[in-house]
């Protein structure tokens, strides 16, 4: 049985080890990002040099100008914004209504319907991409927003999380709403949605992030550069002439990552709540 002093003596080195570990973790996570930022400002001769040069000689934006001139970044940004806002918005709507139906409405095959929704989580995108590509192509949806958005629109994870949340809501509120004679549509938007705001915000942020970063599907259905989203368009900077121009490529990468990083730092509480929601309920 350890005495008071022996535990106290043990705590000191443990604490120090803890800080070292923390510092190491932070360094590993942050160094590549810093490297990217700095490279965005470097001229060719500052990049192709041994030993490596950490800081650029000057912080001019010539690489950014070159990236913007080489590919239509404004279009990428617009396309990403449109597909993300519409895609994530509709997905939330579908998730909320489906979860409401599964929890509060009567239907003979309710369990089956919910099972159908949840089982979809186990079906990887790559397995359905050839039939979906064929369908989208036959509809003439190649290089269109609906072609990018619609096939991935259904809400499985969101429905699952909203259902978990709805099951915890106090019955009294709904009974009051029912006595008021409110329709189910009104009950959902006037009573359920407001008291579920934190959960909805968390799930919304997660679906916004994943829509924004979506890569494989937009890569398949878009081949015109003016219809590309940011992740797809970014790769255009990669192989212009065989030799990678790291300065320009890193400037482009900064343009893609920085909006997300800013949003993440500003809204991290909600985003982290959204990420953990699945884990805690699961």
């Amino acid at each position, binding site marked *: 049985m350890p005495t008071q002093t022996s535990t106290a003596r043990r705590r000191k080195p443990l604490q120090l080890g803890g800080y070292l570990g923390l510092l190491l973790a932070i360094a590993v996570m*942050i160094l590549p990002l810093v*490297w990217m930022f700095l490279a965005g400002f470097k001229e060719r001769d500052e990049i192709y040099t041994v030993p490596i040069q950490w800081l650029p000689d000057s912080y001019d934006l010539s690489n950014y100008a070159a990236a913007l001139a080489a590919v239509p970044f404004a279009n990428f940004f617009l396309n990403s914004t449109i597909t993300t806002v519409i895609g994530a918005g509709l997905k939330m709507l579908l998730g909320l*209504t489906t979860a409401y139906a599964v929890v509060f409405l009567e239907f003979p095959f309710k369990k089956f319907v919910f099972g159908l929704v949840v089982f979809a989580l*186990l079906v990887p995108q*790559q*397995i359905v991409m050839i039939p979906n590509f064929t369908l989208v192509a036959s509809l003439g949806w190649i290089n269109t927003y609906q072609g990018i958005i619609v096939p991935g629109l259904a809400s499985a994870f969101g429905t699952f999380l909203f259902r978990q949340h709805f099951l915890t809501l106090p019955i009294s509120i709904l009974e009051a709403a029912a006595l008021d004679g409110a329709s189910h549509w009104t009950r959902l938007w006037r009573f359920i949605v407001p008291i579920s705001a934190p959960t909805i915000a968390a799930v919304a942020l997660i679906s916004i992030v994943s829509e924004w970063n979506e890569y494989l599907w937009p890569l398949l259905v878009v081949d015109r550069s003016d219809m590309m989203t940011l*992740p797809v368009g*970014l790769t255009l900077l990669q192989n212009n002439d065989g030799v990678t121009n790291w300065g320009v490529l890193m400037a482009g990468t900064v343009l893609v990552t920085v909006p997300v990083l800013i949003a993440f730092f500003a809204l991290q509480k909600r985003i982290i709540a959204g990420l*953990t929601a699945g884990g805690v309920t699961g």
Partner: protein
Amino acid sequence: MPTIEDLHRDTTSAVAAPTPTNVATPAPPRAFTPRKKKKPWKSWLLFLLFAGPNVALLIVFTYKPLLQSLYYSTLQWNLGSASAIPVGLGNYVAWFNDPGTVRVVTVTLIFTVATVGGGMVIGLLFAVLLNRKLHGRGAARTVIVAPYVLSGVAVGLLWLFVFDPNFGITAALLDAIGVASPPWYNDPHWALVMVIIVYLWKNVGYVALIYLAALQSVPRDLLEAASLDGARPMRAFRNIVLPLLGPTTFFLSITTLLSSLQSFDIIQAMTKGGPLEGTTTMMYQIYQEGFQAGRAGYSSAVATILFAVLLVVTLIQMKYVEKRVHY
């Protein structure tokens, strides 16, 4: 109630004991039928209005293509071509007999085990670290999770520069300890290691976050009781905390396996499956065969095999782990 039940039993003599639900249908006491009967009908319709669109989308874009993919796997069919030749199990036979298949399966196994297993171990370490009362742990948590929300393509590209064998950070660090940089770009094995590292860097924050949430729900007095009993920290952790993390580990094992098997962005941005197909996982092969080589039938066969494996592994995980996990 008893009278209705008796009545029911009389008319349908040999039928099993009636439950309240199947009582109501055959013997409808007229008095309350109108209301009770009208309401479910309305509710069903509403249910279809509320859940229908989502279910319809799932059927059109998930379940129907899943079956279609199964059918395509029996065809010799090039993407975009109007004609296809039925070949039965020919694509499957071809895949199993292809000398490259052993390599693809090996690469997939190494990538999956390393990213899922490595991710859980490192993620748990980070979580334990973040759970201690250290200054700056909030900031550390933010930094550790940040890469998870970034685009996989962007992450792949920025790491490609980090790994540059001549002008990258890893080359500089290795040079400092007198080691030459491995040929990350040109050697199939090192390329696989590189892709795994980047995948871990991007995704480990998620695992850490979930483990951290679980650790924070471990009752403090349980740990204090253990330390009073003289349990050393390591042993207290192994005997008390780890079993409590069982459900979390189970959840993570499924979700991280699913996302690892689907990973595409990083491989596409960094190696495109090369060099010498050293980073071609089954997922990447499905993409390559279907959309680069245009062999849609063959690609669908590989997809079907992978889906079958995924389903079996997930079911085993659920069956096996559920028994061992203390809920």
